[in-house]
C-alpha cells in the first residue's frame, strides 16, 4: 500500500462538506440520485426526497466506475425506511425510475398499476383511479415509436 488511507477514507465519511473533495463527492452523487428518481420526488415531495437522498449518499458507497449506476440500490433503501412503511409502492416506483433512466433493453416485472401510477406522477396527471395489485405482475419493456422515441409498455402475467 502506497497511499495514506486516512485522506481517502475521510472523503467517504462526508463529515465536513466544507472540504472540497467531500463536497464534490456529496454533490455529484446527490445530483445523480435527484436526476434519476423522478417519480419518487413527486410522491415524497422535494424536502423529504432530499432528506432520503442525503441519508443514502452518506450510507451507500459507489461501487461502479460508471456514475450512472449509482442508485441501483436506492429502491431497496427506500423500502427499508420505517418512515415509508405505509408506502410499499415506493420501492416499485423507484425501480421503474431507474429502469427508465437506464433505458435497459431488458424488461422488468412490477405489480399491476405501478406503470400507470408512475406515468401519472411523471406527467403530473390527476392521481385518481390508481389501483395497485401486488398479486398481478406486469412485464414492462421499453419500446420505440415511429419517431424513434422511447416509451414504456406493459403486458400482464398472473
Amino acid at each position: 500500500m502506497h497511499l495514506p488511507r486516512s485522506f481517502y477514507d475521510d472523503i467517504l465519511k462526508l463529515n465536513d462538506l466544507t472540504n472540497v473533495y467531500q463536497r464534490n463527492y456529496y454533490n455529484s452523487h446527490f445530483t445523480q440520485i435527484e436526476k434519476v428518481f423522478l417519480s419518487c420526488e413527486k410522491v415524497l415531495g422535494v424536502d423529504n426526497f432530499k432528506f432520503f437522498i442525503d441519508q443514502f449518499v452518506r450510507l451507500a458507497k459507489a461501487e461502479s466506475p460508471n456514475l450512472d449506476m449509482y442508485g441501483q440500490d436506492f429502491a431497496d433503501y427506500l423500502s427499508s425506511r420505517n418512515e415509508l412503511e405505509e408506502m410499499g409502492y415506493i420501492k416499485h416506483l423507484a425501480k421503474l425510475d431507474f429502469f427508465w433512466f437506464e433505458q435497459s433493453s431488458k424488461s422488468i416485472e412490477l405489480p399491476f398499476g405501478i406503470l400507470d401510477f408512475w406515468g401519472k406522477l411523471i406527467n403530473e396527471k390527476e392521481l385518481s383511479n390508481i389501483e395497485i395489485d401486488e398479486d398481478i405482475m406486469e412485464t414492462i419493456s421499453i419500446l420505440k415509436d415511429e419517431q424513434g422515441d422511447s416509451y414504456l409498455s406493459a403486458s400482464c402475467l398472473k
Partner: protein
Amino acid sequence: MIDNSLAGVGINLRLDYIDELLEKKPNLPFVEVIADNWLSFGPHHKKLEKVRELYPISFHCVGMNLCSDDKIDSKYIDSIKSLSERFNPFQISDHLSVQALDGNYFHDLLPHPFSHSIIKSTANKIDEIQNILKRQILVENLSYYHQFEESEMKEYEFINQLAELADCHILFDLNNIWVNEMNYGICSENFLKKINHDRVKEIHIAGAEIIDGIYVDTHGSSVNESVRTLLKRAEAVLGDCPIVYERDNNLPTFGEFIKERVQIEEMLYAPA
C-alpha cells in the same frame, strides 16, 4: 504515433456541441473527447464516426486510476482498446490521480503524495496499460486542493521521474499548474522550466473560478490572461504541440466557444 502536424488549438468536444460541430464543420486541427462517455455502444457512435471523418480525434480518459493502489481495471482498459481500434485516436491520455481505492469509486480526480513508491507502482500500471493498448499514453498533471505530508519531492520531479521510468508522455495542463500556484504559491514558470520538455506531447488550457476563496479548475470560464501568457511561454520552449481548450461548465454558445479558440490561436501565433 504522436503527430506534431496536429499542432494548434483543438477543443474538448462535449456531447452538447456535437450536432453543431457536424453542421458547421469549423476549421480545427483536431478534437478531443472523454473516451469514457463513448464506451457503451449506441446510435451516438454514428455521430462520433462522422466527427472522425472530419477531424483527428484524441482520447482523454478518466478511468485508468493510475496512482491508486487498486489493480488496473482490465475490463475498462479493454474497452478503451476496442474504442481506439474503432476510432483510431492519435493519442490517449489520462490523469495522474486516484479515481477509486479499495473498490470504492470517488467519481473525482483525487491527488496523491509525490513519493518514490508511488512512482514505482504507477509506472508498473502504465507499463501494463501501454502493453495492452500497444502505444504510449500521456499522463496529465492535476490541480489539487490538498497537499500531502508524505510527499518526498516536487510535483515536476515526480512527473519527470515517472515518465522516464514508464516511458510514457506528458499532457501538461497549464491551468492546473496556475491554479496550484494561486492556491499554494508553487511557481508555474519554474514548473514550465523544469518539466521534461521532450516528453510533453499535449497541452491543456482552461478557465478557473474562485469558489469559497479557493481557485478551482472548473473549466467554467474563459482562459485567464495569466494562463494565456503561460501558454505563449510554453509554446516557445515546447515547440509545436497539440493544445486543447477545455470548457465543461457555464457553457457558452458553440459559436462563442469556437471564437475564443480562434482568439487563443491568434494570440499564440502572433509575431512577438
